[in-house]
């Protein structure tokens, strides 16, 4: 147990950066979903790491809530992607461009 708080935060910032990179560069809807998941999970890592050094359990509680909510969110996202796949036979975001102006 020699890891300090800074190590956890560095990992979590790295995950955040990867998530934002994935969201902004990738054009595959599933990959973008991965990016979102990484952002939320990096925040969870943050919360749990802080909670180790703070004498109350609010951080752990919020991490639990946020894991459950992220699961619900991804379920909805995957359902939307499946509907899109049935319609376009493709999940490339670049192809979804009927709305413009």
């Amino acid at each position, binding site marked *: 147990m020699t890891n300090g708080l800074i190590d956890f935060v560095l990992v979590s910032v790295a995950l955040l950066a990867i998530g934002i990179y994935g969201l902004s560069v990738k054009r595959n809807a599933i990959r973008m979903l991965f990016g*979102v998941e990484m952002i939320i999970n990096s925040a969870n890592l*943050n919360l749990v790491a802080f909670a180790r050094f703070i004498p109350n359990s609010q951080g752990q509680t*919020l991490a639990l*809530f*946020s894991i459950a*909510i992220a699961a619900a969110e991804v379920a*909805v996202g995957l359902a939307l992607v499946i509907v899109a796949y049935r*319609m376009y036979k493709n999940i490339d*975001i670049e192809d979804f461009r009927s709305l413009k102006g």
Partner: protein
Amino acid sequence: MLDFTSTPIILTLMLGAVGVIIPVISAVRKEKNDSLYGGIAFAALIAAIGFVIYQIISKNVTPGAIFSKGVLANDTFGSFFAIAMLIVGIMTTVGSFNFMKGRANPAVYYSLIVLASIGMVLIAYSTDLVMLFVAWELMSIPTYVLAGYLKKDPSSNEAAIKYFLFGALSSGIIIWGISLAYGLTGSTNIEQVISGFSHLSPDMMPLAILAVGMFIAGFGFKIGLVPFHMWLPDTYEGAPPTISALLAAGTKKAGFAAALRVIIMGAVALNLNWSLALAIIAIITMTFGNLAAIKQKNLSRMLAYSSIGHAGYILIGLSIAPFSAIGIAASLFHILNHAVMKAAAFIAVAGIVTTLSISHIDKLRGLGKRMPITSLGLVISLLALAGVPPLNGFWSKLMLFGSAINAGATVSWAPYLAVAGVLNSALSLAYYGWIIRKMYFEEGESEKRVKEPKSIIAVMIFSIIFMVGIGVYPDPFIQFAKSAVPTLAGLATVH
């Protein structure tokens, strides 16, 4: 400990039970009767708003906006937003009666509207970041599904995917901000975060500023502030118009509720000179929204850009909050007014789309004769959006711009906000007037009057009464908005 007699808990139990039961009823029942589910949702929302008003009249709510140790505060600030959100929920539900006729899964549709309404109401009541985040997601997740409700329609699906990706990104950023605030102060209670922030050591200050910046960005996505608005026009255009009403009038205002609870407090405690930054965002947002709205050909898309513009107006009140006592009250009043105006406009669009399948502005010619009541509702809501007296939009804009001029006594740049607002209102009158001219003063292909759906007529009559009523006699609502703020503004003097 939870107080089971407080307004938010009872609202949650009441609406939550209804939201869960509606799909169960539809699974159990054999015969198809679409209107039943809408009726149940409507009754529940009416009961909820009746309960909130009863609590206010019998003085069971704490005045102002309080910050308790618990997760929910039973205060006037929350009640004010609860009334605005529930009005929007009711207008959306009634406006959907006709739209949902013959469409699949009405039970799920109405249940999701009820669940999203609870989320919006709970955001306004929450005083803890955990509660705020859960309520935020309770509001967001149903609206992702609702935006993509027309499964066979590519544009509805596209709208939902764009909305989902940006919405999920915004929740990720918000929870990052929360985690930073928790790490810095050791608590998720907003009151304790504020006091923790105000006693922070200077080398931790950049992290606190980053946390507040993340809150602004996260809420800004839902509100539609300009650097974060990219998804908004596409989503409002592609989603079913009734759902666009819920998004523009409901979730956007809930974003402001969350922002008022969190951002203002954090920034006040950090003693940041953040007003100028927000003022610049406000001016950019309103100018961009109104300029982009001018060249739109699709009615929903034009209303979407106009709602970006209105987010800019509302932000005026937030940016001058430290210098003018009525700034936040003006914002709250405009939030209530804009919720009703925008919901009325989108429901009118829903009526036009379902009866005549028109969404292009050029095809609105002669609509005034074909659908007189819907057209009248649309015209009055457009005039109210532009801020024409004696409609409600005029008074709230007057309050906003007036408070900006008042704040000019302390900060020299504040009057420019009022100038920008007035110029933008004049600009917006141009494109609203364009639609009104098309509807009433140009010959259409057909003059034949079509049968207008009863539910749309009901919503139009309600909103016309609301808009003209507040316009003629705005005083009680201004007082109500003012009564919802004192502690919020008072906090600036505490620290």
